[in-house]
């Protein structure tokens, strides 16, 4: 799921810190923004936009963090509105809902742990590529752009 790969160049201390911060940004936003799933995405997006002219290593990791947050936004938003309809609109609590909630929690936890791990590794200047998101970041983020 997570692969440590060689980056095209060895990132400097400042780059490693900035890249690591892109992951930390989403983690802090999760704590602040719960239960609103949009908050972490906005925080990561702002960080991404702020670093879009930064070095390749920083941009790459900002992209990976943003993509991960974006996909989590869909399932978290769906869960959020489903829960709201139960609390305020009287929709029944079904086995389907609880099953969905369990899956969402598993996915969020996986993402949370992976983000912490990646933030630590990136801080050391180690390049970590996630399954699917890493490959997608490689397409979106080009070295010479």
């Amino acid at each position, binding site marked *: 799921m997570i692969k440590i790969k060689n980056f095209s160049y060895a990132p400097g201390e400042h780059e490693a810190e900035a890249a690591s911060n892109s992951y930390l940004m989403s983690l802090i936003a999760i704590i602040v923004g719960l239960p609103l799933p949009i908050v972490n995405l906005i925080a990561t997006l702002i960080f991404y936009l702020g670093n879009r002219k930064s070095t390749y290593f920083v941009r790459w990791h900002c992209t990976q963090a943003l993509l991960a947050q974006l*996909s989590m936004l869909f399932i978290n938003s769906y869960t959020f509105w489903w829960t709201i309809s*139960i609390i305020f609109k009287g929709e029944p609590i079904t*086995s389907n809902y609880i099953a969905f909630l369990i899956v969402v929690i598993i996915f969020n936890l996986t993402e949370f742990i992976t983000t912490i791990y990646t933030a630590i590794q990136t801080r050391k200047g180690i390049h970590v590529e996630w399954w*699917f998101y890493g490959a997608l970041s490689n*397409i979106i983020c080009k070295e010479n752009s």
Partner: protein
Amino acid sequence: MVVLWGIIKHYLQRKFMKKIVIQGAIIIIVFFGTWISLTEVDWIKVFEVQKTVNKTEQKLGELFLETFEKTENKNILIVNAIDTIVTHICTENKIDREKIKIHVLNKDEINAFAMPNGHLIVYSGLILSSDIQEELTGVICHEIAHIELNHVMKKLVKEIGLTVLISMATGNDAAEIIKETVKMLSSSAFDRSLEKEADIKAVDYLIRAKVNPEPFANFLYKLSLEDDAKTEYLKWVSNHPASKERAEYIIEHSKNKLIKYEPILSIETWNKLKIELTE
């Protein structure tokens, strides 16, 4: 050479894209696969959700009922007569009789409403304003339909929220909220679609119980035409919108049913019931 490099690059890009699509698809499949697999488990039973919901509803019913204790009519003849109507409706419609708890209150307003945990409140004003027993039976069926279709809890959750309801049921001091909630239950209608659903269900109940639904429709017409002086007492009609429209679809739904209708109570019991209430 350049062309060959172009072909190789194109092939690699396509292969790379294919890899991303496959990886993305696997994530989606894992997500939905896990969800579908987990739906096989009866989580409602595992987490005892229904038990908690029932307990909350039971507690709320008791709390709301306390506000009416002083005005409840416990005259055996009256209670038995209304009980006979409810039992007949429940038996003919395979409704659990234990679920419906009927309470007659000494109030002049023409009103009846359902509360959580199957408590059905009927005001004496409603019984007295019914010229024939089928009118009263129709209203009772309408309220039983609200109970059976779980409209009461749906309305409560929508109006005041699940968290407040749980807070009330778990014993937090909320006398004012309880009072306001009871007022809301007794003096405001459900959504239009829920009212129609309850009306149609009520007609089905009446037909199965061999009670003519036409007087129920006529009752709506009659009360909507009452003079202004009485309006303040016409709670059940004033808080249920478009009485004429409702009467029309009740008639429409009940026509062409070739059934021999019979009253539930004898004429003597019905008359006695009204005399007891006027005394």
